[in-house]
């Protein structure tokens, strides 16, 4: 029994919850959510250093280099060009310089699962 096994199960559970949640809540709110572990994503945001450049609620630092991320789930576009979908959010988090070669945001070698959890966290910021 390893951490990754637990986290795989956890993610399945999270995926199910998110899907059901989306089914029931879809008509009530237009805010997007991603199938990931938002609580884990919050810790990852400190680790990867998102908050060193972005203002993010509850983070130890409030960066002013990039745009603030409160309410990012309600925006229409990401990075000024990508429609705001969970897939695009994960893509932007993981490969910013592939999306926009001129961006200041560095590629931080974010793994796929970390990208999903970070996206879930960002979409939870109202």
């Amino acid at each position, binding site marked *: 029994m390893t951490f990754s096994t637990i986290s795989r199960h956890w993610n399945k559970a999270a995926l199910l919850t998110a899907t059901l949640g989306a089914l029931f809540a879809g008509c009530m709110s237009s805010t997007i959510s991603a199938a990931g572990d938002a609580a884990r994503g919050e810790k990852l945001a400190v680790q*990867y*250093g*998102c908050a*060193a450049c972005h203002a993010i609620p509850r983070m*130890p*630092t409030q960066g*002013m280099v990039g745009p603030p991320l409160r309410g990012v789930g309600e925006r229409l576009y990401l990075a000024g060009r990508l429609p705001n979908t969970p897939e695009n959010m994960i893509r932007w988090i993981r490969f910013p310089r592939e999306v926009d070669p001129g961006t*200041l945001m*560095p590629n931080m070698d974010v793994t796929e699962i970390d990208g999903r959890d970070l996206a879930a966290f960002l979409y939870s910021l109202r």
Partner: protein
Amino acid sequence: MRSTGLAVTLLISALALMACDYRTSPSNLPPALSAMPRGNPVTEFQPGVEDSAAQPSNRPEETELVIADGQRLYHHFNCSGCHASGGGAIGPALMDDEWIYGNSAGNIFWTIIEGRPQGMPAFGGRISEEQVWSLVAYVRSLSNLKDPPPAVPAEGDSVLRGRQVFLEGPCSLCHTIRGTSALATVGPDLTHVASRKTLVGGLPNTRGNLAGWILNPQNIEPETTMPPTPLAPQELHDLLDYLATLE
């Protein structure tokens, strides 16, 4: 017969090893110097291939500034008393292509530190290593011995470009990276920055945190004296690649 030959070979090897031992035994050099790999043996033989282990690693770049400093020290320490202005007199000429103890920077460094028989004094412990390196650069410049110019960073070699951003940008005004021309002591020494676990305030030392710190440190530590550094995106990415190599 064969065993006699073997025995002789072994004896010679053992003697050679002992000689080697003798040469590397602790001397009156300062600790930093005695810990380093030692230079050429004191023989009259010309060196063959250069022993790269004998090249100390703290050698600075041979810039014009370093050479000019070496010229000043050359006269200050009265090297000219024996070597004249390089043409030689009591001591050998330094501007021809005959080098008894080798002409690589490492060879000359050790010749100055250790001294050589028949008159060349040992300067180890008397003058700083930095001064020795300046003298090395000047002496080499007398016979036009110069390192090949640093390679123009190839397109795509972000580490080299990042190094350039560091050395030619504002970073080098405050920070040291040993082995480069960045020697300022206002901010912390970054020679091993990639081996640090955390940055200021206990933030994990990751690419994202480092980027944010470099671009706008006041967001992270309002009291810090490090100024914001408005880098262009490509400069930032190259610099991060370079800093990641400093383990």
